[in-house]
């Protein structure tokens, strides 16, 4: 038997002995079958689950929640941490200022938290403090905006911007594949950001599969409702007729939908991005142009808490064979439309 953490639960010891007995039986049976699997170890090093284990203090540092999605990130992390009796969450006041965020993370390092979850305001700028934490023996779960070097984190978990564009493009492509000379319009997010370029690249790549579809216009808003309204109004004026629109972000989509309404336009299919509650509700009502949205799941911060807890307890992830958590997790950007919107409704952010 491998040494395990002492446990006060006699019932668990009983369970282990029971497992060992069964294991021994299996071992005997295994002798005949040549099965290399060691069931004892598999039973003891079971992945982190809902049952309480070793207590873990998780430090969480994120940017200022000035956007619906970022706000949902904080909410999801807090709510997930509350569901575990063996997790204490030390959450900092969010900041977009690099210096301030570095200071906050250093405070968490000094407090000797067991694991750090960091969503940097700027991944590159915060790499050093990630390295510092790792050197201090505090494993870092890097959330979404990636550090410069893998040395600065133990595990990265985040969304897939390229995949978001790809899935949006495929969804639109499938809907329009029988429309001759289909025209598609893109309302992008903030052009200063790398992620916007990746989303656009994915979208363009997907559309290349459909020779009948042409992207006729692209304008960049800046993730705000106000800019979404202004840029969409322009796009509607510039394009008298188009068949589909992909909007990168549901928050600016509120403004974009407003512009569509104000212009009295319809007759096209709109796909959103991110997964805001208002978008889910509009998709469910099915009374406007918005028919689907591509997720950039804010639940990733809940998963980051799960990973951090597993890391703190030295365990792997449920449903996977490894004894450790992965080095990187890229989340899938699912397309939510009328058929599956009910399932995703609880994850929608306001």
């Amino acid at each position: 038997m491998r040494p395990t953490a002492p446990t006060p639960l006699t019932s668990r010891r009983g369970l282990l002995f029971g497992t060992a007995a069964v294991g021994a039986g299996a071992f005997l049976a295994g002798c005949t079958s040549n099965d290399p699997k060691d069931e004892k170890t598999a039973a003891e090093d079971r992945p982190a689950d809902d049952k309480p284990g070793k207590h873990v203090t998780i430090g969480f540092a994120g940017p200022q929640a000035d956007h619906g999605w970022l706000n949902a990130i904080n909410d999801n992390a807090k709510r997930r941490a509350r569901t575990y009796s063996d997790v204490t969450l030390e959450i900092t006041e969010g900041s977009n200022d690099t210096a301030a965020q570095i200071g906050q993370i250093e405070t968490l390092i000094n407090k000797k938290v067991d694991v750090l979850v960091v969503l940097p305001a700027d991944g590159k700028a915060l790499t050093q403090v990630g390295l510092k934490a790792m050197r201090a023996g505090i494993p870092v779960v890097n959330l979404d905006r990636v550090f410069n070097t893998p040395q600065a984190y133990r595990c990265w978990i985040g969304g897939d911007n390229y995949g978001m564009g790809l899935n949006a493009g495929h969804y639109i492509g499938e809907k329009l594949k029988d429309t001759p000379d289909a025209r598609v319009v893109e309302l992008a997010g903030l052009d200063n950001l790398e992620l916007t370029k990746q989303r656009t690249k994915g979208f363009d790549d997907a559309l290349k599969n459909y020779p009948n579809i042409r992207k006729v216009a692209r304008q960049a808003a800046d993730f705000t409702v106000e800019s979404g309204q202004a840029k969409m109004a322009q796009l509607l004026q510039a394009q008298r007729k188009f068949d589909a629109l992909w909007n990168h972000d549901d928050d600016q989509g509120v403004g974009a939908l407003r512009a569509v309404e104000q212009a009295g336009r319809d007759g096209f299919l709109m796909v959103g991005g991110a997964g805001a509650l208002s978008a889910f509700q509009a998709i469910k009502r099915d009374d406007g142009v918005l028919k689907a949205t591509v997720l950039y799941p804010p639940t990733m911060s809940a998963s980051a808490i799960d990973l951090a807890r597993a890391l703190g307890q030295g365990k792997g992830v449920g449903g996977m064979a490894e004894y450790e958590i992965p080095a990187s997790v890229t989340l899938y950007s699912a397309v939510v439309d009328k058929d599956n919107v009910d399932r995703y409704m609880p994850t929608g952010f306001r």
Partner: protein
Amino acid sequence: MTQPVSPPRYDSGKAPAAARPPAWRTLAARADVRTLSLLGVLAVLTVIGGVTKPDEFLDTRNLQLVLTQASVIGVVTVGMTFVITSGGIDLSVGAIVALASVWATTVATQEYGFAGILFTALAVGVGCGLVNGLLVAYGGMVPFIATLAMLASARGLALQITDGRTQIVTVDSVLGLGERDAYVLGIPPLVLVFAVVTVIGWLVLNRTTFGRRTVAVGGNAEAARLAGIDVRRQRLYLYLLSGLCCGIAAFLLIILAGSGQNTNGNLYELDAIAAAIIGGTLLSGGRGTITGSVLGVLIFTTITDIFALNNLQSDVQQIAKGAIIVAAVLVQRRTASTT
């Protein structure tokens, strides 16, 4: 009959102050040249738009669109013009618009319907303006610092109220004002408000004692004080006026975007200052023109429109915008100094 009468009258008006009328006339001519050069820029832009995108640009809907998009920042710029004319500056306009728009769209406010939203937007605007005014006029703070402080705290408060969420408006009477059914003779209500604010602003600046006091304070505050103007009170009123304009703009923005968000009014302060300066208002104070400011706003909005219609991306738009600001100011200085 009229010929023999008018020349003497003309002469008699000119005779008592031989030096002043020419100065007056060159000033008037200069003002006209400024306005004309702005109109010229607008005409050139119209030609560019009309040539590159004839169907989309030369279209009633496009005119409605440009004027609608100009109305929010336009109202802010009218207020800003007054403050700059008096030698001050208001860096907090964007933040005040944001704060007013989120305060007026909270669930609690929306329960009071149209009137509640309108009142809250205006009251928050005026309230912030009051604080700015008191700090500058009676607290002795430099306008740049006082309004910078307001910028920071109003943005912070807006974030605190919304918690980063987008507050969607559900009051139909408010939303309806942004839709085509509400257009009066083809004019969107937002544009009507912009027009009314512009006309009132022009009248107040050019035809009232208040306007003349504003110019006097901006030209030489000490001289104005010696001339019996209550400079402090005048300054207080000006920041109040700018705050009120922000409140009106916030209400227009709520109609336009159908929501309130703490990121609203992003960098309005720079857009408004740029439009006012391009229009011919002196950053150092003492001279201000509402007509110029409004033309400045229209030039910016038209540029944005033409770029978007031609599907040019935001990087090109920003570069060109910067170049056009420099060019417009240089051309103006030229024309103003040669005449």
